[in-house]
């Protein structure tokens, strides 16, 4: 690199502009690829955008913390966006009242099944104790999951990664799997996706329908509460 270019790079790489612009460009490219491939679930925009960004950061030797200086402005919007989920949820209020009992039963069952199944399967395949503890809260939204992980002796930053992978898997396989096994009600599809794949699943559920998205958002919120209560008890029994 010649000195002038290097100087420019040093200047740009320390300002938040680069991380922010990179995030928006990578996402739009990922979204264009997703549309180009006929909205195929395997072409998940989050997965593609993350792969692009990791490749670029690794190639340019940029630490994640430097990238996040800029990307945090996008990250911050997760808060108000989560609050905004109340709007589509309110539109489902009449259905929600009817499905209240069924939702609560599905919520508790889904939460327990998620924790117990991921623990037993990972243990059977030789995962270390630390990986097991980090995996336990994989289905909940990351701020809750990281808190749970810390409390039970997992690695919170690893949990954040495992939660993202779970969200992508749920977004990719969820809608097709539920359809193939005969779940036709969008409220139930959305609820199951929200329990197993939190916010990334919820983003996908909104593409099925407004109803699926709203029920997914509700399931995600409730599952965070239930999982933070059941995980310490279950892990105590499993470990």
């Amino acid at each position: 690199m010649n000195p002038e270019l290097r100087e420019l790079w040093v200047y740009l790489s320390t300002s938040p502009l680069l991380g922010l612009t990179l995030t928006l460009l990578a996402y739009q490219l990922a979204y264009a690829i997703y549309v180009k491939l006929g909205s195929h679930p395997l072409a998940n925009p989050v997965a593609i955008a993350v792969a692009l960004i990791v490749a670029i950061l690794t190639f340019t030797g940029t630490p994640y913390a430097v990238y996040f200086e800029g990307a945090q402005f996008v990250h911050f919007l997760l808060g108000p966006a989560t609050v905004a989920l109340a709007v589509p949820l309110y539109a489902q209020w009449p259905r929600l009242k009817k499905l209240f009992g069924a939702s609560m039963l599905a919520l508790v069952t889904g939460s327990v099944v998620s924790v117990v199944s991921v623990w037993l399967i990972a243990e059977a395949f030789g995962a270390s104790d630390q990986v097991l503890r980090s995996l336990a809260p994989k289905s909940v939204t990351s701020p809750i999951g990281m808190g749970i992980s810390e409390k039970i002796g997992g690695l919170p930053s690893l949990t954040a990664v495992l939660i993202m992978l779970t969200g992508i898997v749920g977004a990719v396989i969820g809608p097709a799997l539920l359809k193939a096994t005969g779940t036709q009600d969008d409220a139930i599809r959305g609820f199951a996706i929200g329990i197993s794949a939190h916010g990334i699943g919820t983003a996908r559920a909104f593409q099925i329908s407004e109803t699926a998205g709203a029920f997914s958002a509700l399931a995600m919120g409730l599952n965070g509460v239930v999982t933070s209560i059941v995980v310490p008890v279950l892990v105590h029994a499993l470990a």
Partner: protein
Amino acid sequence: MLASLTLLLVFQLIGETVVQWLRLPVPGPVLGMLLLFAALVVRGEVPTALRDTANGLLQHLSLLFVPAGAGVMTHLGLLATAWLPITVAILLSTAVTLLVTAFVMRAAARQQ
């Protein structure tokens, strides 16, 4: 737009404050969502401006997960050593959770 964005932030702030204060095991924004939902139920309708702002924010919800997602690069080493149990467990467990949750909810909804 400005007023409704402020409203969302105010509910998030209330959520964060209550969570910190009562040491609840929920993130502030999730409590903020439940409180805004309750407020809408009491009010009986969604103001048009709030609906527009909410739709705008939620239209590209996936984008908002990208910055945290790129954090995967900080754990590539650990993922490389434990990729098999992690991959199998996440795939199977997510599938099982999806199916069991949907099955229980369908069965319970039919009973009602």
